């Protein structure tokens, strides 16, 4: 039996000829965002999708912020930082992070890590790893995951609220998520190992991080970083001081150097992903703090402030780094001495400070 077909009610397509170039009139060719100066002749997609999205009374925001905190702070106060700038908006993220780069990059990383773990599994690598190394991984490599989580959640995440421009905040926000992803990469690798290695101490990292004397100065340092209220000091102390002296020291100065000789080709690739993220964040930090050190009006004061932060954070960081030294001795196949790793970190630190235009503190000089 035929069914009666009712005419469906749907919008009808209409030819409107509303495409670019259909008519010529004033502004018909005005096809670029015209309220900011791009760094080069044409704006990049990153610049287009980032600049001025967070308004600023110093730029176009004519009515000011319409809500404030109880103390009168409104919007994105510049005095939330001890550092001053003649133009905060001059900072552009050297990594040019926006939607596409964020998801392409991180999706690639998690895919790569999953594949590497799978290769380890199919190659029966985990069972063949040196038992002393397995203990180091269970305790120390996975203790590291806590640190990345803490910095991502409680240093970078609030800092991306507090900085004064969208360009700085987005760059720090991406840094936060790198840290959190890396922490999860590590702990999920722990889960994989617990399924592959009989007797694997999958929870040993918790006690190591919270109780092992080797890690307590580092934990104290990280907790200290999370307690800094000034976003620029927190970002400086983390990216400029902590990352080269402790972060790189452990990630590439130890794990990535030592693992292969212990029969482990998987762990260094996961650590490498975190190291690569940290290098991206450091590019941003270098550009930001260099810009502030070079500021025509505030440069000298900024340098003095940053130098003060170096005096404050470097001794604690060097102490934390040195307390990690016993880990270098816990593996049976010695590949690198702690002092060699630390020297490399020290040189990286000095080079970074030199790029920013700061003096190396005395505690760290060779």
């Amino acid at each position, binding site marked *: 039996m035929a069914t009666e077909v009712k005419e469906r009610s749907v*919008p009808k397509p*209409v030819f*409107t*000829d*509303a*495409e*670019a170039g*259909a008519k010529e*009139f*004033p*502004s018909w*060719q*005005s*096809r670029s*965002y*015209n*309220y900011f100066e791009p760094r080069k002749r044409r704006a990049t997609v990153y610049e287009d*999708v*980032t600049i*001025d*999205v*967070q*308004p600023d009374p110093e*730029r176009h925001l004519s009515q*000011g*912020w*319409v*809500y*404030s*905190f*109880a103390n*009168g702070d*409104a919007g994105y106060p510049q005095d939330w930082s001890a550092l001053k700038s003649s133009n905060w908006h001059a900072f552009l993220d050297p990594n040019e992070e926006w*939607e596409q780069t*964020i*998801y392409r990059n*991180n*999706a690639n990383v*998690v895919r790569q*890590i999953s594949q590497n773990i799978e290769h380890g599994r199919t190659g029966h690598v985990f069972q063949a790893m040196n038992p002393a190394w397995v203990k180091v991984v269970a305790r120390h490599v996975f203790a590291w995951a*806590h640190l990345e989580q*803490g910095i991502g*959640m409680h240093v970078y*995440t*609030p800092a991306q*609220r507090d900085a004064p421009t*969208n360009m700085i*905040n*987005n760059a720090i926000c991406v840094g*936060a*998520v790198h840290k*959190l992803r890396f*922490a999860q*990469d590590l*702990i999920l690798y722990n*889960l994989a190992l617990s399924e592959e290695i009989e007797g694997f101490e999958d929870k040993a*990292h918790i006690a190591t991080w919270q109780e092992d004397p080797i890690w307590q100065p580092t934990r104290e340092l990280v*907790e*200290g970083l999370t*307690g800094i209220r000034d976003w620029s000091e927190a970002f400086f102390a983390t990216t400029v001081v902590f990352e080269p002296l402790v972060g790189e020291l452990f990630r590439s100065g130890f794990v990535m150097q030592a693992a292969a000789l212990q029969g482990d080709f998987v762990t260094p690739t996961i650590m490498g992903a975190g190291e690569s993220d940290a290098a991206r964040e450091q590019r941003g930090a270098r550009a930001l703090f260099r810009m502030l050190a070079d500021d025509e009006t505030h440069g000298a004061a900024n340098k003095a402030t940053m130098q003060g932060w170096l005096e404050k954070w470097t001794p604690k960081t060097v102490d934390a780094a040195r307390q990690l030294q016993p880990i270098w001795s816990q593996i049976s196949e010695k590949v690198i001495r702690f002092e060699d790793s630390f020297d490399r970190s020290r040189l990286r630190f000095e080079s970074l400070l030199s790029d920013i235009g700061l003096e190396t503190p005395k505690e760290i000089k060779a």
Partner: protein
Amino acid sequence: MSRASITKAHQKIQELSWEPTFVEPVDKYPTDYTFEKAPKKDPLKQVLRSYFPMEEEKDNRVFGAMDGAIRGNMFRQVQERWMEWQKLFLSIIPFPEISAARAMPLAINAVPNPEVHNGLAIQMIDEVRHSTIQMNLKRLYMNHYIDPAGFDLTEKGFANCYAGTIGRQFGEGFITGDAITAANVYLTIVAETAFTNVLFVAMPGEAAANGDYLLPTVFHSVQSDESRHISNGYSIILMALADERNRQLLERDLRYAWWNNHAVVDAAIGTFIEYGTKDRRLDRESYAEAWRRWIYDDYYRSYLVPLEKYGLTIPHDLVEESWNRIWNKGYIHEVAQFFATGWFANYWRIDGMDDKDFEWFEHKYPGWYDKYGRWWEKYTELSKKNGHKPIAFEAEANYQYPHRCWTCMVPCLIREDTVMDEVDGQVRTYCSETCHWTDKVAFRPEYEGRPTPSMGKLSGQREWETLHHGKDLGDIMQDLGYVRDDGHTLIPQPHLNLDPKKMWTLDEVKGITLNSPNVLLNEMSPEEREQHMAEYKRGGPAGRPAAA
């Protein structure tokens, strides 16, 4: 990843957090709420290993559709009436999105629950995604739509136009003041859970009906992240409800957040959907019908009312009054009329309504023509450049330029509801009792005898008209940058005709002085003021001055 492995993975990542012992955590963002540690779960089990590839896949679909739209000449079918309103909408929305990212540490700092922190951190990067994907969509519109003017100055226009502050609350409200008021109740419990339905679902549907399938592509991709955000917010409000001391604050904040979201979002999205469309099929859903479905039924009845079982008093009266404003008091129509009245001070073109529109409005909102029809006929008549002024400055339009609401910054358009009061040494006007309460009672350091030292304040130069009081309109337009690249023709137009001879220029607005109703009100004697306000409240609908 399989569901079982997601569960396992999610369980495993809970090992990452720890209780600091060396340093007392710093309260970075103040709140008057109190939270006890509670083992609240994240039912969506968010893990970054599965999150990033999922979002990448969603992005690939979005960018594929964008390519397809260009190759398929989508802009040969888009309605200019619709696209012009996108110049306003897409200038506003990336800011609330990015503000939501900035709001996440407020909630993280306040709520002692690592599982919830994890969900909030993922929301943070979602919001960067949304903000930048929307800016990129707008960039495509600017490149491929017939009239790029207005898209080209987008974020500047948002920051200085007569509608900007209305939209800006929908972002600033997330990031400032009491951390839970802002980042949980205002942002997640009300804005995301209730109003993203009309923003990101109903509106894209209307875009598709107007030939634009990119807005639905991008915004449905955005909306598919919202369910996770809603889940984050729900976890937090349940934790807040566990502490009796929070009840009074929650009830205060639900009243403020509900009413402000209604005032701001319904004003903007209602206008875009009802007055930006060319789809006048009589059976297509009106904004009021969409609101009833998405907000009243799906949000209020299915989400908000069940919270009563936890002993929370829900603002039933305000939900009903919002509906009353939309259905009986013509809120959307009054706002659209105000936007059109102010065409001279924006960065998009506003098409007049024609007979087909009238028929649809009359069908959907019986009695509409008697209230608003004549004015829209006058709008069309006065849209022609033939020696007269913009409609706002022509007495024959029979429209009294409205006072602004000090709180929501939408004007006091439902004239009889206007409240006038001296607050903080200034005579202010409010669109409603609730907006008056918000300024005078809620956003104060004490609430019902209880200290609320963390509550935020209303600040800034809240009235656009006051900022420009006494200035020449031609100077205002030049100062704000609302002039096309010939240095003479205005970006805004009261019609869609792109014939340069028909387009309004600086010449037609020079010599007109803009006055702020609030400045004039404050200059009056108390008696004059009372008389003026009594007359104002007798005015309307459709902005008609009170009969003598």
